[in-house]
């Protein structure tokens, strides 16, 4: 099983590369977008983590940042954008509305983006403070390094199933 060792070493190296250059697709809908701007702005600069380059096309982005309330009407849009992202991909639910629907418990606000897509890191707060966002990014980087992201686990499981025969 030599392959197993080299891939993990190669996998670690690849994860290390991915960890420090997450290209975000800012799926901005509501008030958290203003705080997302502040996180990208000079004071709480997200560029220090290599994640400041927003890519507005799912083909070129690894990290889907769901920023703000997801309404029922926005659900299919979010699902399609997530499906069209290239593997491996991660999702951050930015703010309590994206995590659980926040204090909008009604017919139109969806109780959290994880009703539609698997989410890797949830950020509480309405809107969360920029420090919370950077902390969440560091959490995600640890998760990327250890390969525990949803898409990574799904990929590894499919690999094992294929190998297992």
């Amino acid at each position, binding site marked *: 099983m030599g392959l197993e060792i080299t891939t993990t070493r*190669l996998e670690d190296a*690849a994860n290390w590369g991915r960890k420090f250059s997450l290209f975000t697709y800012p799926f901005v809908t509501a008030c958290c977008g203003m705080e997302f701007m502040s996180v990208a702005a000079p004071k709480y600069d997200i560029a220090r983590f290599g994640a400041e380059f927003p890519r507005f096309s*799912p083909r070129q982005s690894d990290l889907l940042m769901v920023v703000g309330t997801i309404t029922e009407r926005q659900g299919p*849009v979010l699902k*399609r*954008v997530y*499906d*069209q992202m*290239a593997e491996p991909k991660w999702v951050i639910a930015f703010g309590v509305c994206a995590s659980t629907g926040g204090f909008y418990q009604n017919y139109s606000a969806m109780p959290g983006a994880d009703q539609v897509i698997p989410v890797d890191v949830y950020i509480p707060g309405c809107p969360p403070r920029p420090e919370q966002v950077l902390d969440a990014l560091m959490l995600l980087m640890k998760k990327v390094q250890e390969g525990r992201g949803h898409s990574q686990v799904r990929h590894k499981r*499919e690999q094992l199933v294929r190998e297992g025969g």
Partner: protein
Amino acid sequence: MELQTYIPLGTSILLALAFCGLFTALAVLIGPRRLSPAKMQPFECGSEPIGSPRARYSVRFYQVAILFLVFDIETAFMYPWAVLYRDLSFVGGPGGGAMSLLGFTEMLTFVTVLVVALAYVWRKKAIGWD
């Protein structure tokens, strides 16, 4: 024919190719590939694409592209000329002359030809969109 002058050029080309090749190989090797019908759909800001992109749209796109190509190549020709500008000088031999007559007039004719083309295109309103 001193071949040495081409060694730095050759190494830089090789390096460039190696660099790009490395990254595409890494992407192909390591990157997981999972195709799904939803992923193959064209991306239209998250909503259902309406109609097919195969429709016959205006010829102006082609026009603007071609004109860009023409003037882009014009500037591309200027680079080697600018690099060798000093050696092209006529008055007082290579490297010494203050004013390079041959090189300048040569580029002048090249540019005027293209300016005439630009004027014609401008008058035909093929550049803008309206």
